[in-house]
């Protein structure tokens, strides 16, 4: 009997010790051939993106004597929760690609490193679009470096324009023109729309974006102040309600359902004549095989006096709090966001990048439609604002959206919705 107990306890101890050793930190000298290994997490695992990022990593590694960047692909759905768990466990990667709008949230919550000690801010920030740089600041210190960005544009079907007797080289410039054009572009067959001229909520420019476009580029929040219930935003929401009324709820819901699976695009399929999306949408048109004759322009303006305000987002390179090799990581981030790597990324992926020089030099190499679209995107950047998530109102969008939806659905008026939304968000302030 004693022997049995003895062997069982031996096994248990053995098991326990292997579990415990698994918990302990791996030796800090994570190096190969004496080089410092920088662990770099991205969600770029697709056939198109992965080779590009790995080429950039390779190029950097070749130029270094004591840094070796190791790229790790983590799926889109997991990467940020995994990063958070790793930060909490004190064992994060050295660099992670993260969302630009929530940088200050992570800075406040101790999830990212302050990068100001590794760079000279005044000269370093000159490389990037200023709206992007502002978004990575928390208490005037950068906690990330902008990598890619995007901006919404208006795509339109030139053939449909010709068919409707419109000048294909003169896209709508204001909201009013949008309405006039849309009316001409509608095609109806026994009470059913076979083509919709334009519906503002299809595509990449949602209700919050239209409200921003109407309100001089001001989103729901400006410098920590709530700017939800403003006269222009009420007007914009009323305008959105009008569109829904014009086409009818049923038509809109049918269209939405038909295209919600993402397999077909209503614009490329010729079901919608004008459509909002990011510049990269061009590659979808190009690869669709339809040889579509399309035009593109910056967002239409609220009235003759306002600017073509657009909405943007993007991704940043960030050093998670507690990373083992922040200095070496920053060396790579500098390369990653520098002109050469950014230009390579932009060319290969047809993506908008944060580095101004890179974005502009990409333009020179492009021709035809690719150039037109990219040019418009670069032009649109100065009128593009982001929607950073402030720490006091982490879930403000989720609170406003349902009320805006109710207004569009006709359950409450636009004004009621925005008054209520502002009250709701204010109530939950932290």
């Amino acid at each position, binding site marked *: 009997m004693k022997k049995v*107990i003895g062997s069982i306890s031996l096994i248990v101890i053995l098991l326990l010790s292997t579990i415990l050793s698994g918990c302990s930190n791996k030796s800090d000298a994570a190096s190969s051939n004496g080089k410092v290994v920088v662990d770099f997490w991205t969600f770029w695992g697709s056939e198109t993106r992965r080779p590009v990022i790995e080429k950039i990593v390779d190029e950097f590694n070749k130029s270094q004597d004591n840094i070796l960047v190791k790229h790790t692909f983590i799926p889109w759905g997991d990467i940020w929760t995994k990063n958070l768990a790793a930060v909490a466990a004190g064992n994060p990667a050295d660099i992670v690609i993260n969302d630009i709008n929530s940088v200050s949230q992570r800075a406040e919550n101790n999830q990212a490193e302050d990068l100001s000690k590794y760079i000279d801010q005044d000269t370093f920030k000159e490389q990037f679009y200023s709206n992007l740089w502002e978004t990575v600041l928390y208490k005037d210190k950068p906690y990330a470096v902008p990598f890619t960005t995007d901006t919404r544009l208006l795509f339109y079907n030139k053939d449909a324009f010709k068919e409707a007797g419109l000048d294909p080289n003169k896209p709508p410039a204001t909201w009013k023109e949008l309405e006039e054009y849309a009316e001409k572009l509608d095609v109806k067959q026994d009470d059913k729309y076979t083509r919709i001229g334009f519906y503002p909520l299809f595509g990449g420019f949602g209700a919050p974006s239209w409200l921003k476009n109407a309100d001089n580029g001001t989103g729901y929040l400006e410098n920590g102040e709530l700017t939800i219930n403003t006269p222009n935003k009420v007007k914009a929401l009323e305008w959105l309600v009008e569109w829904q009324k014009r086409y009818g709820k049923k038509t809109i*819901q049918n269209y939405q*359902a*038909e295209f919600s699976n993402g397999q077909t695009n209503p614009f490329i399929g010729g079901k919608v004549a004008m459509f909002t999306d990011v510049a990269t949408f061009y590659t979808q048109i190009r690869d669709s095989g339809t040889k579509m004759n399309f035009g593109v322009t910056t967002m239409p303006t609220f009235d003759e006096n306002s600017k073509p305000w657009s909405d943007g987002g993007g991704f940043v390179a960030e050093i998670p709090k507690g990373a083992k090799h922040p200095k070496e990581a920053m060396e790579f981030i500098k390369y990653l966001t520098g002109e050469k790597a950014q230009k390579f990324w932009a060319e290969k992926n047809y993506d908008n990048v944060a580095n101004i020089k890179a974005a502009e030099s990409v333009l020179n190499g492009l021709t035809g439609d690719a150039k037109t679209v990219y040019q418009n995107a670069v032009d649109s950047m100065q009128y593009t604002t982001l929607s950073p998530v402030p720490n006091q109102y982490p*879930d403000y969008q*989720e609170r406003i959206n349902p009320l805006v939806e109710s207004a569009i659905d006709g359950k409450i008026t636009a004004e009621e919705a925005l008054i209520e939304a502002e009250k*709701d968000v204010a109530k939950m302030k932290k």
Partner: protein
Amino acid sequence: MTADQAKTRLPSISLSPKKTRAVAPSVSSVRKRNLIGYIFILPWLIGFVGLIAGPLLFSLFASFTDYNITSKMNFIGLENYKRMFTLDDMFWTALWNTLYYVIFSVPLTTAGAIMIAVLLNQQVKGMKVFRTIYYLPSILSGVAVYFLWMQLLSPSTGLVNQFLHIFGIEGPSWLFDPNWTKPALILMKMWSVGGGMLLYLGRMQGISPSLYEAADLDGASGFRKFFHITLPMITPIIFFDIITSTIGSFQIFQEAYVMTQNGQGGPGNSLLFYNLHMWNNAFKSFDMGYASAMAWFLFIIIMALTFTNLKVGKKWVYYDGGDDK
């Protein structure tokens, strides 16, 4: 000597029958035996304390703090609960949506499963094929099924509305109309009642034919036989089914997360279920303290309901061979 004691002594009897049969085990050998027992369940104990009980108690504590995983964990008393009940309108929306779903889906799926089980319990040729067909939806896994139903429920091209169209009914926009999103999900749940059906069927086949024969001799109709024999005999399964499906329905999450745009609980928050709101707080706003408070409130609701079920259950559940019934 009860049955349990007899079982535990069995091995030692067979090992050395003559010596141990008469002699009571010494204190040290009892201890030794207990120790061996504990060592055997040690892996499970470690798992339970480390992975279940520990985190559970931690989240109870976290619900009284402003814990956000990385930087804060200050004790704030009942602040989270206060915020939940008095300030957060979305909390009430989420609770209402979840209750609506539970109230309709639990009775409907239970009744549906019983009905199909009764139909599949007949002596008809090819019954095995039918049973397989009705059970099939239950073996398909979650997300694929949701995508399938998103297509089926598509307002203009979906099969459901095209079927309704044959009868001249213009179907609703289902997942795009806030008034129809929850019924759409309940409809989808009805499709996979096969799992419950199997339990009912198993029980029904265990009912002694003599009961039905006696009823036949007395000239009972099919309905009478169902209500007076079948239904009482399957009450233990109904009881089990109601308790587990109530708990399951309160935890509805994936459906809303997968089938709404960006997992936001889409149109007009009509599919913002309790767990989805909790998840958003935990993993989008990183407000773990608040999410923990929500989790514990849900726990209390489910506990209370299960307790009531158990109490009320005594009155209507029939157990074969039970002494007190």
